[in-house]
């Protein structure tokens, strides 16, 4: 029962490089989310998706790109990484938003950009 998994768990890269963080869920949840967590800021929503091929911006979308060709996958891409994007990234899924089901989170990807 994997639930929601993120990969890699840790990543170090250099400024200007492209990096993709993967998120996979096994519940067939419609909604998926990407957050970043920085000290002093709690969790901030980057992008979300209501279904395959439907994505939209959250609070801090600049510098990120998402796609959702399949319901179970929601990759997050940093096309040209910057040091300010060093953070812990969490993916989450949610079955039915309008019945207020809770979000289920992965264990995060710790990304360091040198």
């Amino acid at each position, binding site marked *: 029962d994997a639930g929601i998994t993120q990969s890699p768990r840790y990543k170090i890269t250099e400024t200007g490089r492209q990096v993709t963080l993967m998120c996979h869920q096994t519940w067939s949840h419609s909604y998926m989310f990407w957050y970043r967590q920085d000290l002093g800021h*709690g969790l901030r929503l980057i992008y979300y998706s209501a279904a395959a091929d439907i994505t*939209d911006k*959250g609070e801090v979308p600049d510098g990120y790109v998402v796609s959702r060709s399949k319901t179970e996958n929601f990759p997050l891409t940093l096309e040209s990484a910057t040091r300010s994007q060093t953070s812990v990234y969490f993916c989450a899924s949610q079955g039915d*938003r309008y019945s*207020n089901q*809770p979000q*289920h989170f992965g264990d995060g990807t710790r990304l360091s950009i040198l």
Partner: protein
Amino acid sequence: LAKTTQPISMDSYEGQEVNITCSHNNIATNDYITWYQQFPSQGPRFIIQGYKTKVTNEVASLFIPADRKSSTLSLPRVSLSDTAVYYCLVDANTGGFKTIFGAGTRLFVKA
């Protein structure tokens, strides 16, 4: 957008009841209040959710006054393993998905 305000940190001792209050003055009519718990190196985990009055489950209770401008998470008889960060979340259905997490409350439970 209903931003939330929580205490930055709290200390407690094993066996005590802990109450963490969250303020959300601009909560909208359709918003629910959800609390999550987060341990180091893990993602947040759902604890409890409510709309009004009181909700109780096997882990915690959630108290919401009539005006819904605040809520209180109550953890009965905490143990060392309850040391974590607790987030109050108000789901904002208006204007798209603008999920707003508070900064969280870091709870330290001492022996």
